[in-house]
């Protein structure tokens, strides 16, 4: 066995540890921004399809033109509407307290 092997292995471990931690930090940072984006998306959908909930809507042809781009958002919003009254934990996951 090469006497430098343990050193190499330790170095590899430290390298992978720091890269994982770096990714974890980025992941969390991105997650926080996603929370904000989610809120903005919700508002965007409300603006476009607000007539369902009584919010004044833009001219219908604009909504119709944009609708195909919203397929994914509509699916997500649909699911979120099921848990709309259960957002405390999700908010707690975004904004750490203690």
């Amino acid at each position, binding site marked *: 066995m090469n006497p430098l092997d343990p050193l190499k292995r330790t170095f590899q471990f430290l390298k992978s540890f720091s890269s994982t931690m770096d990714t974890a*930090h980025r992941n*969390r940072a991105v997650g926080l921004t996603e929370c*904000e984006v989610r809120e903005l998306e919700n508002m965007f959908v409300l603006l476009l399809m607000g007539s369902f909930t009584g919010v004044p809507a833009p001219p219908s042809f604009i909504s119709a033109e944009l609708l195909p781009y919203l397929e994914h958002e509509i699916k997500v919003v649909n699911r979120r509407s099921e848990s709309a009254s259960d957002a*405390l934990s999700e908010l707690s996951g975004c904004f750490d307290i203690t």
Partner: protein
Amino acid sequence: MTTLIIIIGAVVYAALYMIYGRKMESEVVKADNAIQTPAHRLYDGVDYVPTRTSVLFGHHFASVAGAAPIVGPVVAMAWGWVPALAWVWFGNIFIGAVHDYLAVMASVRYDGKSIQFVASDLINKRTGYLFYILVFFLLVLVVAAFAAVLGGMFMSNPGIPAAAAYLLIAAVIQGFLMYKTKLPFAVSTAIGIAMLVLVIYLAGVFPLEASRNFWFLAMFFYIIIAAALPVQVLLQPRDYLNAWLLYVGLILGGLGAIFAFQGFTAPAFTSFSPIISAGQPTPFWPVIPLIIACGSLSGFHALVASGTTSKQISSEKAGLAIGYGVMLVEGFLSTIVVIAVAGWGVQVMTGAGQTITTAGWSTQYTPAMSGSFPNAAMFSETWAAMIGDTWLNFIPETFLRIVAGMWVSSFALTTLDSTNRLARYTLAEIFLPLKSKSESLYRFFSNRWVASVIPAAIGVYLGWSGSFGLLWPSFGAANQLIAAIALLTGTAWVSKRLKTKATYAFIPAMALWVTVTAAMVWYLAVVIPVTWAANPATGGTVGFITVAMLIMNIIFIIDFFKTKNQPLADTEIGAE
């Protein structure tokens, strides 16, 4: 001694993770990788996304580790290092980690729904609603306790408020670099870390001094303004920089504890009832969970675990590392804090002009930390002294103190503005029943500015007028009550849905419930009357919150036992 304890700690944690944790996984939860997690089953690329376990581990740890696991053990050192360490380890392994693990796994089996949802389904709808009120109280008390911590720190070392203020500026620049200039993440991270070093240097050279009143007023306005800003302007970049600070602090602290080879100067055990809370003799049982909350167990973790984490777990077996493992690492952080104070407490306090001896520890320790030498300063000073006693002594102690102070203060500041974001939501939910009776009143209370000012004003006022010794246990009580309810929910989930060994959850849940209830009764009987006599407004407010929490606590346990043997409706969610 320091080296020995850190090694024993690491061995104990690793061994019990392998033995107790794995037993929970195989015999209680029966985690099975063949069952798809919500991250895969409900994948949408937005909320439900499978994430690598090691990355989610770091992410979850950064979410749950803040200033509380540091401050709590510092205060608990009044009992001596053995009781403090015993509660961190025991509570961590047998209660806190079990609590977190069950919360995350129950949520995973419930399609990533929250712990309140699970409680509503398994126990009672009322339990879910009362959760909001309890969380609101927790948030007000968090603001109060952390404002008191920050106020004390800012007065004790002017370098710390300077670091906090400069870090705010650095965070805004970091946010600008990331989102406006579209610099690559690696480059903006490197610039952010360089700014972090610069902040530490500048805080040492240009400290900020102001009166106590000024700092509290500044905190009040900070809470409201910071919570109104989009997250990418301040909160997110600062949170990102904080995470680096956390790891630097943990790694330096771990190295310090291993290589300092220092004996303990703090006594192993002082007395069953040393002076701790509001100048009163404070019994170890039942008050200890009110003093060491997050380093041992924390109800807030159940919310985080069932909020975003459970939607990202890639396999059921990864739940053990995330739920159980992360809690143990947080306990390890508290272990480092105990070691730092036990090893360097006398030296540091004597150096700061306080009268403290090993023999007089039980009566001198807590009073020495009021006034010019607060508990958070105790941590930053001992942590710096610990590292200064190793081969890392080439780092000037002034800067080490600022790093530790910045570590605690930046986490506490993040807590303050996060609290307000959550409080706005909880207030809107609490006042929802009012909507059908008085729409205008509901709109008033759920208005974002009104909902921001209410918790900030009550919390900062309590922090300003009340002592830390009064506020910290009340924050602990609210936190541990949520933990007790989450554990009872976990018990109900194990016994009703899984039909496996519920004793693993039931015994810690009941032990915690009884202890916290007894502690709250003690708090109402001993601490509140003293505070009431000195300051009726503060004593009355905290007393009212404590009585309300005690009543809710009793409602929870009645609901739990009333529904314990009731059969469940075979709902689609949660059905195995």
